[in-house]
Structures are given as C-alpha cells and as structure tokens.
C-alpha cells in the first residue's frame, strides 16, 4: 500500500505572533511541523505497521520547510517530497488542494492520503475536502480510528454530536483527530536517517501545471483588539462574601 501524508510547516504554538509592517511575524520562534499533522504521520505509520506500506510525507512550502519533512522522516516515514515554487507565495486553500492533488498523481499509485484536522496558522480546515474533490476520491474526515480490510477503509468519525462509523473503498483521502494516538517521538535511527535524506524538490512545471489562481485574498492583517483588562481581584472578609460580590459583579455586566 502507498500512503501520502500531507503536512505543513507553521510557527510553534508558543510563538508570540504579531503584525509587523503589515506582515505576520513570529519573532525568534522556530517553525515546526503543524502539530495536528504529527497525528497524520502517526496514523500513516500505524497503517504501515498494520499491513505494510510505503509512507511519503508531502509538503508545500519554502526550502526551509524541509525541516518539517525531516521531522516526518525521523518519525519513520520512508520518503519526503517538497513542492516549492515562487508562484505559490500567493496561494489559498483551493489552490493548495489542486497542487497537492497534482503531486499525489505524480507520486502515483497512491491508495491513501492522510491530513491533520487543521493547521495552526490559517486554520481553514478546507484542504482535506478540497484535495479529495479535486482527485474525485471519497473523503473520510475526522477519523479517530482507521481500519483497512479488503480494500475498504472504515473509520470512526468523531463529530460534535457523537461518533459515526463511515466507510469507503480505496483510494481514500482521510483526516485524523487526536484520538488516533499520540504521535511517536523520532527514534535515534530515524533522526540519523532523516539528517542524511535528500529530499526532492518539485516545482509546478515538474508537475506539468501552472499556479492555480488564488481567489481568497488577504486585504488586511490586524492585531487582536487589546483587552486592556486590569484584573480586579475580588476581596472580602470571608469566601462567602467574596462569592456574593462576584455573583453581583457578573450579574451587573448584564451578559447573563
């Protein structure tokens, strides 16, 4: 079986992100593999162990995004591909989906594509569905567990209202949620292998395409409205009195 795991590189979640001269700045914080995508890599490796598979990590990004792919390799992925093209700097989710679909076709013979449930940066959560649509493959989104038997994938879909059992025939595009299992740590051997790996870089022309036109455009970046909140610590002669005062203050805000 051939599995592709789609990953993205994002600023670390501890980063202090702000707008500097109209651009997003994350200061000195490192760029890391999107944390939700680590679960996708984990899901791919679980299937590799369950039934034998070749796992390829796929990423669209600048050359420095090789580090995110190396993380996937050090976890145990077999191959990595970086799609890097200056024409992709102004992109949106549907454009990314069309590029990912083209890369998946170029890899060839792929049975299963796995995404994390969203990214930490733009967090549109659209790319899984859009990649599936471009490929005309079934989508099984928000999988908390995955079972593959006789060419049929059955997942437990974790939704707001509970859990559904949903199935489809391969090839399939999946997204996974955290209950798939904690991502494994890179092994010593994995890190050594990843550090030596030569990661191929594909441009759009390598995939026989031009940049899909972005239709969603950012017109302005804003820092969040500052909540100039000096926290008022409620005091009183007894906890009961404090509770009384707090209840009054909450009711006085007229938000209840």
């Amino acid at each position, binding site marked *: 079986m051939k599995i592709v795991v789609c990953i993205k590189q994002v600023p670390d*979640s*501890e980063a*202090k*992100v*702000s*707008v500097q001269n109209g651009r*997003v700045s994350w200061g000195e914080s490192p760029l890391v593999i999107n944390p939700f995508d680590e679960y996708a890599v984990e899901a791919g490796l679980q299937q590799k162990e369950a039934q034998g598979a070749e796992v390829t990590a796929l990423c669209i990004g600048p050359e420095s995004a090789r580090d995110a792919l190396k993380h996937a390799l050090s976890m145990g992925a077999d191959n990595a591909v970086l799609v890097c093209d200056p024409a992709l700097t102004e992109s*949106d989710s*549907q454009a990314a989906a069309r590029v990912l679909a083209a890369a998946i076709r170029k890899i060839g013979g792929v049975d299963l594509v796995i995404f994390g449930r969203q990214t*930490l*940066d*733009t*967090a*549109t959560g*659209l*790319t*899984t*569905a*859009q990649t599936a*649509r471009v490929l005309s493959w*079934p*989508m099984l*989104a*928000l999988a908390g567990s995955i079972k593959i038997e006789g060419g049929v994938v059955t997942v437990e879909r974790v*939704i*707001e*209202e*509970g*859990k*559904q*059992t*949903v*199935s489809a025939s391969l090839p399939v595009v999946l997204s996974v949620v*955290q209950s798939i299992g904690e991502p494994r740590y890179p092994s010593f051997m994995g890190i050594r292998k990843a550090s030596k790996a030569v990661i191929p870089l594909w441009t759009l022309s390598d995939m026989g395409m031009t940049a899909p036109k*972005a*239709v*969603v*455009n950012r*017109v302005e*970046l*804003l*820092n*969040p409205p500052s*909540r100039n*909140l000096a926290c*008022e*610590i*409620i005091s009183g002669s007894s*906890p*009961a009195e*404090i*509770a*009384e005062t*707090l*209840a009054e*203050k*909450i009711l006085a*805000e007229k*938000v*209840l």
Partner: protein
Amino acid sequence: MKTWVYIDHFKGEVVSAAWEAVGVAKSFGMVSALVFGSGVESLAKAAFEFGADEVLLADDPSLADFRAETYASTLTALASASAPDLILLPNTFRAREMAAMSAIDLNSGVLVDVTALENNAGNITATRPIYEGKLFEKTTCSASPQFITLRGRAFPRPVRMEGSTGTLRKVSAQSGALTSVEGYSAGESGVSINDAGIIVSGGRGVSNNPGLGLDEKATAEKGFTLIGELAALLGGAVGASRAAVDAGYIPYSHQVGQTGKVVSPDVYIAAGISGSIQHIVGIRTAKLVVAINKDAEAPIFGVARYGVVGDLFTFIPLLTAAFKQKLGK
C-alpha cells in the same frame, strides 16, 4: 444581492449558528434558505419563522445521512443554475466540508470561521481569527459565489416569528455518494461548549484537594461535580483544560483551547486553570472571563476581568449558592 443560507442540521436538529446566518443574510436583503435531508420539511417552516423569504428544499431518502460529496453536489447544481452571489453557512465541520467541495466545483473560495462582515455594495470583507486567535485577517473572495462560514455566537440570533411563511421550492438531490454511514453512537447529552452562553471550566486544580482524603480521580470527580452544579444553575456547559482531559478527568468533547475548541461564551469561569497560552487562545472571544485559582500568580488572571484567589472546592459551592439566591432559584 442574492444570498443563500445553508441550514445545517444533524438528524433534524438545526445548529443555532444557521439561524444566526439567516439573521446576517436578512440584513443584506432577500434570503433563500437551503434545507437538505430526508423528512426535513418541518425545518423549512422553522427557516421561514427565522426570516427566510424562500426555502429550497431537497428532501430525498438519499440525503438521509450527511455525506459531503452528495450534499456538495446538490449545492453545486443549485448554485450553477441560479448563480447566488453569497452562500452563508454556519462554521460546522459538515458545512465546511460541503462548502469546501462545492467551491472546488464552482472555482470559487471559502472564507472560514468569520467573526465580522462588512458589505460594501455587494463586496464582502470578512474578518476571521488566524494563528489561534493571535491575529485577525480581513479577507475577500474574488470569485462568485462567495462561500462564507460564520462562527457560532459571533452574530445575533434573529427572533423567531411564529407563523411566518414564504415560498417553498422543492429541488432535486444529486447522487454520487462515495462513502456509507454504517453506524452512529450519540455523544453525551447536555449543553455543548460550542453553543453555550456560559461555560464553567475546570483544570488540573480540580484534582488538588488533599483535605478531602480522596485519591486523584475521585477528587477530580468531586471537583467537576461542583463545577457542573454551577454550570447547570446558570444554564451553561462544562469545559476543561487540556491537562484535565489528558489526566482522564473528563472527556475530550469538553476541552477548550488550541487542541480542543475555540469558544465564544458570554461568561467564561475558569476554575483551577493556570492559563497556558494554548488554553487562552481558546477563550479570546469570550465576553467576560472570571478566574478562580489558588495561585495569585497564575497567568489566567492576566486575561480575566474578575479574579478570586482561593480554593475552588470552597469557593464554587459558595458562588453557586450566591447565584441561587440572587436569581431566585
């Protein structure tokens, strides 16, 4: 401007944010509501009462279970025939999957999880949180129809006018399902943190009360019982930090924060939660944050309007009692 609103529902239960979307659409002019499913004609009646002028009803046994492929194809076929300018949807997983696919079919884009909209003569600019709410971006969609998913509770819910009616148009469902739904088990009952006006949340502190003489799990159970009583009195939901969920005190569906849910309640009461950045990004759009923590230095006080330095096991029951008295319950 031709505005459509997709009325997302699960087994006939409409997501509240769908009605909020009808309210937004109404402020732009005439509204057509889209109701898809099997045996869902009663939802059309509700859509009229919330303000829809017209309902496009695709009522077909093949639409009994939500499947993104067929729902998206049904939407695509309708939009190709009638060319709406704007399609609003509540920001649920289902509606987002469907908008994502239909946007591919129609060569358009989706503006997701939007918290504010500006309409300048049909040119819509949408504001949405990015980088876990650390920043906001204003975005536009240059193609048509523009798909926009609205964050729940970011827009007011319109008043329901009993007996209002409009034009009901039956439309056909598209086939082409690629997946099959084989089973379903319901989640917990009770108020979901997505829809809640009030959330009372517990963190690692709920297992910290040596005075009770109980083990960690039993202490946490007691702590969440107290939190649950306050939430129930106020008609709210119970939330939790990742630490509490990871420790197994409470199921994941309650988790607020980066790896859980981003919530927008009117009141958020954090009890025994220190306030990691990952938790705080989940409550940035809460209107009023109240923190209760033993540690006066806990970062949660930095984002709270009101704080109480004290033990939640002592304080929460007193707060519940105070509300009971003041609300006359």
